């Protein structure tokens, strides 16, 4: 699944490690989600949306629909 995580993170000047700390997950998790190789669960997607003060749809993009 494509996502805007890297862009949102760059806008806030956060490193992957910093974002991982804020989400209370490992840096590898953030990297795997960012590269689209790993799809987060719904609770983690909600945590991401809350952290970036946006909606899940604004972060994640279903490739089939696009």
């Amino acid at each position, binding site marked *: 699944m494509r996502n805007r995580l890297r862009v949102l993170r760059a806008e806030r000047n956060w490193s992957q490690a910093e974002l991982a700390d804020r989400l209370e997950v*490992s840096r590898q998790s953030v*990297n795997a989600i960012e590269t689209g*190789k790993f799809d987060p669960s719904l609770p983690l997607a909600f945590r991401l949306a809350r952290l970036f003060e946006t909606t899940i749809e604004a972060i994640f993009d279903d490739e089939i629909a696009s």
Partner: protein
Amino acid sequence: MRICGEKLTAAVKRLCYRMMVSGGLYGIMALGVGSYRHLHHPHGAALYVEAVLMMLPFLGIIASFGLYLYEEHDEFMYTLSVQSSLWATGITVVLANLFIQLHHFASVPVLTFRTLVVIWGLVFAITMPFVSRRYK
């Protein structure tokens, strides 16, 4: 605590601690049971007690991993662990069966439970980086 520059999750730290405790317990049991056997030459029920005592550290190792899977809140690390454990279980079962067949046809000694636990742990550790590479 970091390994290869990566911060360990709290669940991994607890897993390492429990594994070390189980390993230490195995050392103590092996020394204790060995000494007791050497000094008292036990027989009957005492041998069953010895066998149960020697199994306790292995139960500790299995329980540690089960607790780790229960406590790991990082879903990505959980996924990696489950995939590696499936590889480890598969390879361990294949090796155990291979040696059973070799035992029947070529009188090769079968792998002991202790050896299988070590093989499982090694395969788990070896496959982890390969499994995680798929997500890079």
